[in-house]
């Protein structure tokens, strides 16, 4: 429509672009409403008396569900508790294997103890896995990561964490696979779950920790369920996508061969979609690790608990070491799963070997387990890493922070104060004084222009929900913190992305850095920030920028690289300089892609925002966090859903813009 508008200007020269006129009118109206704030205070600040007590209703419903909901043979609470009892079995088995060992004791004086897998054995086994999937380099990387856990005294906690991961991941993968298959089979089911998936991926995890706590009790099982809920949605999406991408001909072949629907699925479609599905498995692993710290809030224990408790005690060194342990675990599992996914498929020679010759790695791994177990019987150091050999760098980090704070306190403080006074606080004030009515109207107008009346309606309703449930002021603080962080992330990320796109060496370096940044669990970002800047909005912002900058870099890099080479050649043939090519060809064409990167940055910023509640922000994140500590289901969910709605509004508007722009450029 705007295209039609601008051509009209070209034709008769005087008529104003109707969209421009609409925007001007809306801005004037906003100013007017603001000027009339004495007469119409309700239009600027949402009146408390109008609040819909949604959070009370939800809390009430939750109470009813747990206390009174009877399914006939058993109550709802019994159902959930028995489910958690069921899930406790595999979890206990994994924990026994990796962490606590098994004790069979009919007679408490003479227990029969089967020891856990020793540290030497496990490092050996993951090393063999690394070697089989990706060669010596990967073996050293993965083995090194696990060795860190032993050497730095993180082994016990790490094994608690690992045992919950090794159970949560297969369950999440299986659940995601089945839901994804259902969505693939039945269009209507897909339409039903898509908004739920959107919501699950944008609602901060904290928000559903409380109901899980109520339903499944405090402990590792509840934590694992939260992890699965958090980690599964991408698997569902990936499953649907991967199954759709199986070539039509392959499916037709399956049908012509006379497959039943079930045979078609399990013998044709899923094996053909294997590579795509493995991407989903990797996602589940990474998200499960991302949940480690949050899950420890409802009883997961392990490394997450270590980080959380040292963060609370401001014990920097310990927190950092445990945080690094999580990171290394994440890196090891990520690279390992990626290597397995990308492993070249077997060739014909494999078929001609005997079973033993076909499974050298499996046999080696088993051999290591047996041999180390036997050696461990006579030499306990093989079994339990000797405490005397443990290293800790905790004191070093604390000294370093101390040193920085002693020597650079004034400089750091000056930067922080300047930014707070001249950027953060003015923006926050401005947003808080915007009339809510006008903000909703402006959002709707943007929706109308970018995606038509449906989008306008959606955006207005979501924003309206936030106002009606009494979350407006906190939402504006959220928008301010998130918005500024995104601006800073874009200011850093886009230029870096452009640089990486135009320079091969920079590309490689940047790639490694953002890969690492994306493997770091979000909590880890808080540790150094709090060390240097203590709590507050400023620290939160820095942590958010660090966490959310990666997609801005990645999409910019990718967007510029995918500009068709013949266009660059044409530009060069016309005599463009490198700078002209960048500004006149590459950036305009890459802009939709860059905007999608910014969109991702916004999503990640919002996810991080909730976690920064731990360092004392005053936004929706804090609201969710308080709800968690007070076990207030309704309050947490309403605030969490509000965060999700902010995310969805931003996402839909930007995606609509990028889509339209791509179509105009003929890229979509």
């Amino acid at each position, binding site marked *: 429509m705007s295209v039609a508008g601008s051509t009209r200007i070209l034709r008769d020269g005087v008529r104003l672009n109707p969209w421009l006129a609409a925007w001007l009118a809306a801005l004037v109206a906003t100013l007017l409403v603001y000027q009339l704030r004495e007469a119409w205070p309700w239009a600027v600040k949402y009146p408390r008396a109008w609040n819909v007590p949604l959070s009370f209703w939800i809390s009430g419903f939750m109470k009813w569900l747990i206390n009174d909901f009877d399914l006939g043979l058993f109550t709802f609470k019994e159902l959930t508790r028995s489910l958690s009892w069921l899930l406790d079995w595999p979890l206990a088995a994994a924990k026994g294997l990796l962490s606590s060992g098994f004790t069979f004791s009919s007679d408490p004086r003479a227990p029969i103890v089967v020891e856990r897998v020793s540290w030497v054995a496990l490092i050996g086994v993951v090393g063999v896995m690394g070697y089989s999937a990706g060669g010596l380099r990967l073996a050293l990387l993965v083995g090194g990561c696990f060795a860190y856990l032993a050497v730095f005294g993180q082994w016990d906690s790490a094994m608690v964490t690992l045992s919950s991961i090794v159970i949560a991941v297969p369950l999440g993968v299986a659940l995601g696979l089945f839901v994804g298959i259902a969505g693939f089979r039945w269009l209507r089911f897909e339409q039903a779950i898509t908004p739920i998936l959107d919501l699950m991926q944008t609602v901060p995890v904290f928000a559903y920790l409380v109901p899980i706590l109520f339903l499944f009790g405090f402990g590792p099982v509840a934590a694992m369920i939260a992890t699965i809920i958090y980690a599964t949605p991408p698997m569902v999406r990936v499953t649907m996508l991967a199954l759709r991408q199986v*070539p039509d*001909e*392959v499916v*037709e*072949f399956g*049908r*012509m*061969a*006379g*497959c*039943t629907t079930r*045979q078609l699925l399990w*013998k*044709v479609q899923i*094996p*053909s979609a*294997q590579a795509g599905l493995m991407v989903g498995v990797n996602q589940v692993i990474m998200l499960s690790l991302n949940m480690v710290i949050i899950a420890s809030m409802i009883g997961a224990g392990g490394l997450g608990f270590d980080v959380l408790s040292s963060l609370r005690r401001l014990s920097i060194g310990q927190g950092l070491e445990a945080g690094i342990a999580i990171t290394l675990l994440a890196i090891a599992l990520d690279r390992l799963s990626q290597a397995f996914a990308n492993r070249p*498929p*077997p*060739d*014909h*020679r494999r*078929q*001609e070997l005997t079973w033993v010759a076909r499974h050298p790695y499996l046999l080696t791994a088993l051999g290591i387990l047996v041999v180390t177990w036997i050696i461990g019987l006579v030499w306990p150091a093989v079994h339990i890493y000797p405490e005397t050999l443990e290293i800790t760098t905790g004191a070093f980090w604390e000294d370093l922070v101390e040193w920085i704070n002693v020597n650079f306190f004034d400089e750091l403080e000056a930067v922080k104060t300047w930014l707070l006074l001249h950027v953060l606080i003015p923006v926050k004030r401005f947003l808080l004084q915007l009339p809510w009515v006008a903000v909703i109207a402006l959002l709707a107008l943007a929706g109308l222009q970018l995606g038509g009346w449906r989008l306008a309606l959606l955006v207005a309703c979501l924003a309206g929900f936030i106002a009606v449930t009494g979350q407006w002021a906190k939402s504006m603080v959220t928008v301010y913190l998130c918005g500024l962080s995104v601006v800073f992330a874009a200011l850093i990320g886009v230029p870096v992305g452009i640089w990486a796109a135009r320079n091969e060496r920079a590309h490689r370096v940047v790639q490694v850095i953002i890969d690492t940044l994306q493997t770091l669990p979000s909590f880890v970002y808080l540790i150094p920030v709090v060390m240097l800047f203590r709590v507050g909005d400023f620290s939160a912002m820095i942590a958010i920028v660090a966490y959310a900058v990666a997609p801005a870099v990645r999409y910019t890099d990718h967007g510029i690289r995918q500009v068709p080479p013949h266009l660059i050649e044409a530009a060069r043939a016309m005599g463009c300089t490198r700078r002209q090519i960048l500004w006149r060809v590459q950036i305009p064409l890459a802009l939709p892609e860059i905007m999608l990167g910014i969109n991702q940055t916004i999503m990640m910023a919002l996810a991080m925002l909730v976690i920064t509640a731990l360092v004392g922000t005053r936004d929706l994140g804090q609201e969710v966090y308080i709800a968690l500590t007070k076990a207030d289901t309704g309050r947490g969910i309403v605030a969490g859903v509000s965060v999700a709605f902010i995310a969805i509004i931003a996402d839909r508007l930007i995606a609509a813009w990028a889509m339209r722009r791509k179509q105009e450029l003929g890229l979509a």
Partner: protein
Amino acid sequence: MATREQSASGAGASSGKAAAKTAKLTCSGVWKVFGQGAKEFLARHDTAPNAAELTGAGLIGAVRDAGLEVGEGEIFVIMGLSGSGKSTLVRCLSRLIEPTAGAIFFEDQDLLKTSEKEMIELRRHKMGMVFQHFALLPHLTVLGNVAFPLEVQGVDRETRKRRALEVIELVGLQGREAYYPRELSGGQQQRVGIARSLAVEPEIWFLDEPFSALDPLIRREMQDEFLRLQNVLRKTIVFITHDFDEAIRLADRIAIMQDGAIIQIGTPEALVLDPATDYVAEFTKEIPRAKVLSAQAVMSPLGDGEAPSGGVPWNTKVAELAERLVDSEEALAVLDAGGRPIGRLERRAVLDVLVGRTGGP
């Protein structure tokens, strides 16, 4: 549509080779219309809307009123350019795609009234299909791929292995059983596709542009291979191609499709001699006639009591007999299937064909 009558004229000119056979697969009035409310739309228009009406309703007529009859043991080629609806039509014939209207008979069985369960049985035992991009399962070996149709039927491991090895040998891939598809060249992959479709000994064999994704040299080799196999197997074949040369080379009869409709059905010879529309003529123009026309098409009637010496069967292609005639002064006799002379072949008529001079017979 106007094209219906024209198609009949082409089919009538066939030399009787296919007409004698019983029909294995027939369809009539088949429509496939994509878009919302296609079925109701067709019913509203008496199952005969024209192109403008379709476009007006926002529908796409991928197949429009197609009718054909494939005789037992015949190679029936459906030829058309991309977007002509040939692939959709062949998928309608095997009911991979549900036609919007029409009737399809496999022998005496009405396929559109067949339940999904019976359809599965039919596909398991009586139908085979080869795909343009091979459609091999990447996670299975050659043996696994070829045995796959048997596996889904529940044939036991030993039997299916034996049978699979047989067809693998038939297509000349022995020694490659343990290879994975990605280890094979395009031509080899399509041999696997062919072996796989033959593993269940189908009665009707669909080939959807089987050689289009191959290099020209390999394509030629595979066409020869295909003819060799058909000499042994005598399947009823529906072969899709966009390549008119390929159609001429392989077909007993050809159906030409344009914009979803069949505009002419006939033997290669009939198409070349009597193209129904300019569109068909456009394809036949560049075809070397000597390779298509048979002795029967070029002969002149015998005079009373005339009995020329020597003789060639009625269906010998001009290109094959030319050398004999160029060397001899005498006209040749053309013999029917029983060895009786039915006409005489003039040297001049053959030369006309060879140099591409028209207005001959």
